[in-house]
């Protein structure tokens, strides 16, 4: 029980954000109208993806120092979940963009950057598949993961701010900028972000444990 409190918290927060996100009062803005509610579902996906990929980056560094196979498993599973959340972020964004910007893909710098970041991590998975020996696979893919991470940070946080973007809140931290976000949205938005980060961590740890059991079975056979 004392270990599962954060899982219960995750469920409560996400359920709250879904119910409140659809029912609570939102500011009526031109063009946006009711689609503003998407902020509670689209933006938390990106926060979760970035947290997942950062954790994966940290575990890759740990793997290089420890050569412990479990660190490598953590790195790859957090990347997997990060990719899934990245795809969800792209899809939720594209659906919303269809209604507000008129086009599902609007050549927006942030949209492009996010797609490229996903390509980097898909390449990471391809690299893993092309290596057979476990220690070597862990080491080389960790090197690529660490090498790609700073470039991804530049891609997601610096380049979109150098050009005009259709996304709100450029040239600041979107979502946390006190001026940009209507006060009515915040009581739902912050729990949503936090809840989705917890959910994604939960998924990643479950997948990590499945992988560990599979490895043990392989050893026994």
């Amino acid at each position, binding site marked *: 029980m004392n270990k599962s409190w954060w899982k219960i918290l995750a469920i409560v927060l996400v359920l709250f954000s879904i119910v409140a996100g659809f029912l609570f009062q939102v500011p009526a803005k031109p063009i946006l109208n009711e689609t503003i509610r998407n902020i509670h579902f689209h933006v938390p996906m990106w926060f979760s993806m970035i947290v997942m990929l950062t954790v994966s980056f940290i575990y890759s560094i740990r793997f290089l120092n420890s050569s412990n196979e479990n660190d490598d498993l953590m790195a790859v599973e957090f990347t997997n979940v990060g990719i899934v959340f990245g795809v969800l972020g792209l899809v939720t964004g594209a659906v919303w963009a269809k209604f507000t910007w008129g086009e599902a893909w609007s050549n927006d710098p942030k949209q492009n950057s996010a797609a490229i970041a996903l390509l980097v991590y898909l390449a990471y998975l391809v690299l893993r598949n092309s290596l057979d020996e476990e220690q070597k696979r862990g080491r080389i893919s960790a*090197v690529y993961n660490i*090498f790609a991470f700073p*470039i991804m940070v530049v891609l997601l946080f610096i*380049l979109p701010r150098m050009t005009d973007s259709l996304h709100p809140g450029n040239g600041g931290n979107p979502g946390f900028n006190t001026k940009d976000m209507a006060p009515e949205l915040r009581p739902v938005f912050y729990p949503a972000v936090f809840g989705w980060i917890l959910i994604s961590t939960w998924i990643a740890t479950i997948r990590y444990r499945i992988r560990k059991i599979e490895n043990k079975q392989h050893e026994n056979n």
Partner: protein
Amino acid sequence: MDLFNQVKILIRKEMMLEWRSKYALNGILLYVVSTVFVCYLAFRDISSAPTWNALFWIIMLFASVNAITKSFIQESRARQLYYYTITSPQAIIISKIIYNIMLMLLLSVVALGFYTLVFKNPLGDPLFYMLSVLLGSISFASVFTMISGIASKASNGGGLMAILSFPVIIPLLVVLIKLSKNAMDGLDRSVSYDEIGVLLAINVIVVTTSLLLFPYLWRD
């Protein structure tokens, strides 16, 4: 022997190897020239400036991937083991990066020369365009050297190289295309300082991460 001397000797070794078996260097130069010529025959003339600029960078991208892929594959495993016993990993990666920068500079000068010869297009600020090409060569060399090291460890290095390097180079390429477009239009140079700063910063990050990570990569 200190790092500086090691790097110097390793670069000399790279150049001598290249000079003795000229096929690699000639091969890559021929690759650029024939790619430009294929593009020329396909396009005939390009009137729009953004297309001209984009095509040049695409040619450079493919030529540099081809030129740098071999930097770790061409030497046998036994010889690499020998280097690893007598030098430090940092010296190896620095020497490879510097050598690849020189190779890329030569390649880009040849490519730009031939490209402007067949596709006549006015450059607003030729000197600044050259600067962007120079920065591009350095960026390509620094990113691709490390990735060719990673790809060479996998069984199918050549195919993997493109998959691993393209997404990583795109952010640099976007900035480079913008910078060179500014130079092409002859905009005031101060407009492009942001881009130059970002390019230099990314290069510094890439080279430092390469230095930190290469020791883990080379051990086998």
